[in-house]
C-alpha cells in the first residue's frame, strides 16, 4: 500500500545573514539535514526529540509553511514540489494541524463559531449560514463541547476547552492527515488523558492519520505505532514503536529513556545522565552529530556520518557502534 505521506532525503537549511543591505551570508542553520520517512494511512507516526532536533521544522515543511532546500515530499502519490496554487489549496483540505499552545492558536478577537468555521469559509465552500452553523455544531459535538460555547471568545474557555476547539477546527474539512505538535504538553496533567483519549476516538471514527511531534516519550509510546527519534536535524533511530521502546539501540535514545522522569520511586537509571549541552544546528559537530556527548564514541564516529541501517525487523539505527552495543544488551 502506498504511504500517505513520504519524505525523501529532505534538507532544510536557513541562511543566517549578517544583515545589512548587501545581505552577506555568514552561517547556515542546518535545521533538517537529510530526513526520510513515510507514514501509512490510518496510522500514527511520531517524531521525538529535544530542542534543535528539527522536528518543528519538519512539521512546518509538511504544512507547506516552508520549502525544502533539497529533497521531496510526496503526498497521496503526488509530488508536493510541483504543486500549483490550486494544488496547494487542495492540499490544505487534506492536511490540517493542532498546535501546542491552544490559547495562541485561537484568534482572541473571534468567536468560537467563527474560529471553527473558518476553514470552510477560507476554502470557499460557499455554505449557507445555516449549513455552516450545523457543520460547526457537528464538530463541537465530535470534540465533546456543547453548542453553548458558539458565541464565546477564547479567553472565556479553559485550557482543555480551547484545545478541543482547536481540534474541532482541524477536523472540519475532513482531512486525511493531521499534524499534532505537542498536543497536550501545555495542558494540565489531569486533563491530558481526556484529550489523548479524544484524539484516539476521533482517529478511529474518521479513519485519520496522525503525525505527532513531541518530546514526552511516555505519551508518544502510548499514541504512536511508528516512531522516529531526531537529534540535530537527523533521524538517528526509527521503527515500530513497541520494538524501539523495548530495544532502544542508539546511545541518544537510551539516554533519553533514562533521562525521562518516571513516577517510580527508587528507580535506578539504566545509564548515567548525559553530559554536555545539546549541540547547535548552526554549527553541528562533524561526523556523527552525537559524538561529543556519547560515551561510546570512537575516532570513526568523529569523522564519518553513520547511515540508518536496519538492525532488527522494522527498526533502523544510525550508529557506527550499534552492532556492538546491541550485543551487550
Amino acid at each position, binding site marked *: 500500500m502506498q504511504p500517505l505521506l513520504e519524505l525523501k532525503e529532505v534538507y532544510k537549511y536557513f541562511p543566517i545573514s549578517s544583515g545589512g543591505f548587501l545581505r552577506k551570508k555568514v552561517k547556515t542553520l542546518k535545521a533538517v539535514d537529510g530526513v526520510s520517512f513515510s507514514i501509512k494511512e490510518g496510522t500514527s507516526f511520531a517524531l521525538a526529540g529535544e530542542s534543535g532536533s528539527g522536528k518543528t521544522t519538519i512539521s512546518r515543511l509538511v504544512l507547506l509553511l516552508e520549502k525544502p532546500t533539497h529533497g521531496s515530499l510526496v503526498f497521496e502519490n503526488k509530488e508536493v514540489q510541483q504543486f500549483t496554487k490550486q494544488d496547494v489549496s487542495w492540499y490544505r483540505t487534506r492536511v490540517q*494541524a493542532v*498546535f501546542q*499552545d491552544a490559547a495562541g*492558536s485561537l484568534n*482572541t478577537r473571534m468567536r468560537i463559531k467563527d474560529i471553527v468555521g*473558518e*476553514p470552510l469559509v*477560507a*476554502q470557499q465552500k460557499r455554505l449557507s449560514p445555516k449549513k455552516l452553523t450545523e457543520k460547526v455544531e457537528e464538530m463541537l459535538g465530535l470534540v465533546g463541547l456543547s453548542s453553548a460555547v458558539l458565541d464565546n471568545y477564547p479567553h472565556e474557555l479553559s485550557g482543555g476547552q480551547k484545545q478541543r476547539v*482547536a481540534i474541532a477546527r482541524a477536523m472540519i474539512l475532513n482531512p486525511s492527515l493531521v499534524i499534532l505538535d505537542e498536543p497536550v504538553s501545555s495542558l494540565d496533567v489531569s486533563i491530558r488523558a481526556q484529550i489523548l483519549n479524544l484524539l484516539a476516538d476521533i482517529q478511529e471514527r474518521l479513519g485519520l492519520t496522525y503525525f505527532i511531534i513531541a518530546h514526552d516519550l511516555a505519551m508518544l509510546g502510548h499514541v504512536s505505532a511508528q516512531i522516529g527519534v531526531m537529534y540535530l536535524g537527523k533521524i538517528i533511530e526509527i521503527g515500530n514503536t513497541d520494538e524501539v521502546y523495548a530495544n532502544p539501540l542508539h546511545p541518544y535514545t537510551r539516554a533519553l529513556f533514562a533521562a525521562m522522569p518516571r513516577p517510580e520511586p527508587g528507580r535506578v537509571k539504566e545509564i548515567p545522565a548525559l553530559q554536555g549541552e545539546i549541540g547547535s544546528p548552526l554549527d553541528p559537530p562533524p561526523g556523527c552529530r552525537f559524538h561529543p556527548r556519547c560515551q561510546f564514541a570512537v575516532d570513526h564516529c568523529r569523522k564519518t556520518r553513520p547511515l540508518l541501517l536496519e538492525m532488527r525487523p522494522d527498526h533502523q539505527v544510525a550508529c557506527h557502534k550499534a552492532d556492538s552495543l546491541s550485543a551487550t544488551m
Partner: protein
Amino acid sequence: MKRFLRIARELPITAMLLLFPVLICGLFGQCFAPHDATLINPSLALRAPSWLTGQGWTYILGTDYLGRDVLSRVILGARSTLIVSVIGVVCAGVIGVFIGLFSGYLGGRFDLIIMRLVDMQMSMPAILLALLISAAMGAGLTAVIVVIAIVFWTQYARVVRGETLSVKQRDFVVMARVEGCSSRRILVKHIVPHVIDSAVVIATLQLGTAVMLEAALSFLGLGVQPPTVAWGKMIAEARLYIATAWWLPTFPGITIMVTVLGANLWGDWLRDKLDPKLRQI
C-alpha cells in the same frame, strides 16, 4: 447596563471635560458665537476684555486690531482647527497603516525599501516639508491637511509594521495559512484587528501635535487664509500687540493648550486601556 456603567466609571473625565467644549464649538460654533467673527469694525479696535473695563458682556474677550470680537473668533477657530487636525491625522493614519501592514506582511526587499523611505522622511524637519508643500500647493486648509498627512504617516507605518511582524508569527495566523486562508483574508481578519489598537492610540496622541503644527504653520503664514479663522493665525496676527493688547494672543493660546492637553490625556487613557506595551509612544 452594568458593563456600560463600569466603562463609564473608567472614562477619562478630565480629558472629556477639556475636549467636549472644543468639539461643541467646532460643530455648532456659529450658533452661539455672540458676534460675527469676520466683521471688521475699526472703530472698535483693540478693546480690552469687557469684564475688565466694566463694560458689561459685549466683548467678553475683547477685540483685535480690526475690531473683530475675540470670543467669536476663538469659538469659530475651533472648527478649522478640528477639521484640519482630525482629517489630517486620519489621512496620515490610513496611509501609514496601509504601508506598515504591507511592509510587515510582505517583508523582504519591499520592507527594506519602505523602511529606508520612512527613515529618510523622518530625518526631514516638518517645517521644511511644510514649506515645500505649501510652495507647491499654495497655502490654505487643504495644504495644511496634506502637510499633516505627509509629516505624520511615518509613525503609523513604523509601529504597525513592527506589530504586523510580530502578529504574523503567532500561532493563529500560522493556522490561518494552514487552513488555506488567502493573504487578503489573513490581513483583514487576523492581522488588522490586532494592530489597529496601536494605530488608534497613535491617532489620538497625534491630534495634539497636529493642532500645534497647524498653529505653527498659521504663524508662518502657510496655514488657513483669511477670512477663515484659525487659532494659530490669531496668535500670529497678535505678534505686534503682545505688550499692548495681551488678550489677543492669550485666549487662542489657552484654547490650543486645552485642546492639546485634552487630546493627550485621552490618548494616554486609551493607550493604557488597550495596551500597556505602548507606553513608550
